[in-house]
């Protein structure tokens, strides 16, 4: 890792350690927007990282960005950082400068109609499961304009927001545009399938990385608790069964970190579909295993709202469903194997590690 990378990670860690406390996460879950923390992130350039500085971003690479997202997962950062970053990256792909406000996206087959009416646009349609919808200023969506697949960044102030939340209490809202008239800076003609696929992969990688961070923290908390808590006259970790649990959590955590680091490095190199599929699939599996065991280690205190553990486990459970569950990615991988019919499984697994197909 470069010195620059370490500097970015260290300073982000420091910010989150100071400001992103357990109490703050609780407060945001109650519905309060953490304006101070958001501003600090914007000022430190964290919300525009990996957007080239030539178009007004912070610069840096995706490795920096995804390692910051891992920290976001570790600290249960209650802000749409992944959503804002991905939106800014998708805009940058169109040559647009980044925005410094909270953003979200929904790159799905939305039934959204955009109509040009004189100087303005008229938007109609409903978008479900919008992360952070109520707090975001704008949403990047795919809609139909003149029967063309169009990407547009829509302001949310005139949209109706039906509030809901995921398992972790993070906003997961329904956004309704009912004959909303708005000005739009720009709309983009896009290849819908291509952009949906890219967003799915970006989202899956972001979530896999954030989950790896949450796993790290669940491991830390479990170790700490096993050291401090005494039963039968000795610390919990002296009990062999607790040692077995800690080792299992450690194993799943390292497996998740390793496979998501591989996906990050593949993403930076430009060929990453399969690596992301593997990462999200594996991290999802580990999330279930670790959550169960971490709670078992913590006993009753771990299932209280007072204890921090639920901020991690609820996110882990919830994020498993975001951008593809285990079955989704396993199916993608199965199709890839089916499409490479002449290859043996071993050739498939090692194909980037061999020179040319062995006859």
């Amino acid at each position: 890792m470069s010195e620059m990378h370490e500097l970015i990670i260290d300073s982000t860690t420091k910010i989150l350690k100071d400001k992103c406390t357990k109490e703050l996460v609780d407060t945001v879950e109650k519905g309060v927007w953490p304006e101070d923390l958001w501003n600090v992130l914007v000022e430190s350039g964290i919300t525009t990282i990996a957007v080239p500085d030539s178009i007004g971003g912070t610069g840096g690479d995706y490795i920096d960005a995804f390692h910051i997202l891992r920290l976001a997962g570790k600290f249960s950062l209650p802000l749409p950082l992944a959503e804002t970053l991905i939106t800014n990256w998708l805009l940058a792909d169109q040559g647009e400068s980044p925005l410094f406000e909270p953003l979200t996206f929904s790159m799905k087959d939305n039934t959204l109609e955009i109509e040009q009416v004189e100087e303005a646009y008229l938007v109609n349609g409903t978008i479900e499961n919008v992360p952070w919808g109520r707090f975001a200023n704008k949403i990047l969506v795919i809609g139909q304009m003149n029967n063309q697949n169009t990407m547009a960044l829509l302001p949310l102030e005139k949209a109706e927001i039906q509030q809901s939340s995921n398992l972790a209490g993070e906003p997961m809202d329904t956004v309704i545009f009912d004959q909303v008239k708005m000005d739009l800076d720009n709309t983009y003609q896009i290849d819908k399938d291509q952009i949906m696929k890219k967003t799915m992969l970006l989202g899956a990688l972001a979530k896999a990385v954030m989950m790896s961070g949450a796993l790290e923290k669940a491991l830390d908390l479990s170790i700490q608790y096993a050291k401090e808590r005494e039963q039968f006259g000795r610390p919990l970790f002296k009990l062999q069964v607790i040692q077995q649990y800690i080792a299992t959590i450690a194993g799943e955590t390292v497996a998740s970190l390793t496979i998501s680091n591989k996906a990050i490095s593949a993403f930076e190199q430009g060929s990453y579909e399969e690596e992301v599929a593997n990462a999200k699939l594996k991290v999802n599996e580990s999330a279930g295993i670790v959550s169960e065991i971490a709670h078992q280690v913590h006993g009753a205190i771990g299932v209280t709202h007072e204890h921090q553990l639920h901020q991690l486990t609820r996110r882990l459970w919830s994020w498993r469903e975001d951008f593809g569950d285990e079955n989704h990615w396993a199916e993608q991988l199965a199709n890839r194997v089916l499409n490479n019919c002449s290859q043996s499984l071993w050739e498939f697994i090692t194909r980037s590690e061999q020179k040319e197909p062995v006859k």
Partner: protein
Amino acid sequence: MNKLELPIFDFTEEQKVFRNEVRSFLQEEKEKGTFESKCDSWLSGYDPAFSEKLGQKGWIGMTWPKEYGGTERSAIERYIVIEELLAIGAPVAAHWFADRQTGPLFLRFGTEKQKQEFLPKIVKGKCYFSIGLSEPNSGSDLASISTRAEKVEGGWILNGAKTWTSGAHQSHYLVVLCRTEKKDPKNRHKGMSQLLVDISSPGVTVRPIKFLTGEEHFNEVFFENVYITEGNLIGTEGNGWEQSMAELAYERSGPERILSTFPLLEELVRLLKENKDTDRLKEAMKLVTSLISLRLMSLGVAKYLEEGKDVGISAALVKDLGTKFERNVAEIARLLVSSVPSVESDIEIERYLAQSILHAPGFTLRGGTNEILRGIVAKGMVAG
């Protein structure tokens, strides 16, 4: 936490070419009928003729210095060879421990005479070693061993017994961890040494213990007043425990802790592809993803090992997860194909399933039980 994070390994162009070379050779040999693929071939695939062939290719002791017959290849190139051998299920049991453990032990701690005498023979695939650690009364608690060597004129007299010694009925030599001083209850690891025993010496009795299948892999070995010359001490007298432990990181994190059932997974995926059974292939791909994550971890450990870093905890983690995975392959595969597993079946997948299911209990026991490994991991984590 970051001490657990492993590096991502990328193969060089030369290494990719090398992988092809190894693979082509093995495929040709298989097609010629030199060997039949099987699961768990590093423990149960004994074939001295094939070991000699690998020796001729320079693929045994390949990281060792040229002066002892090695080819001074990197640890990663060795890793590639081992992976390719296990993926195809080639018989590598005969020379396995000599290549993995005893050779490196000689290089690190052996005398010049020992290196000159044994390494060239190992490299040729003609000289096989077993490792004598466990004893009838010392299983997981290895530090409690009591096999004892008494100092006499010009050497030692060895008495005691080893058990679960893989391959001793077919090997030429045995590296025995024994006590060369009286047991000290306050420092149980003190006063142990590693002695090299010629299995054909008078006083050595090898008695195979039949595996649950009736096959012979492991043995009891008895030592009755066996005379060991001074020249057969490996390393430093009294340093046996540390020397033995130093070998373990290599033993724990290699491809053999991940790939023992790979021939089964390969055949399973081939059948499901043939049937275009996406639903079941999906379940198989979940196994493949686990395998990919384990390979990345194992390669990360290999990279750190080559850089001389301490990987004790990560290596133990790889073995714990890897061996559980090996067993899982069998348990999941049997539900994805309808078959009657049998070691005698003419149908490949039925043989692989039988080999995997029957050998599976050993995966998570050999080389230290997974429970012992997890204890090591947890203690390391809590201390760190």
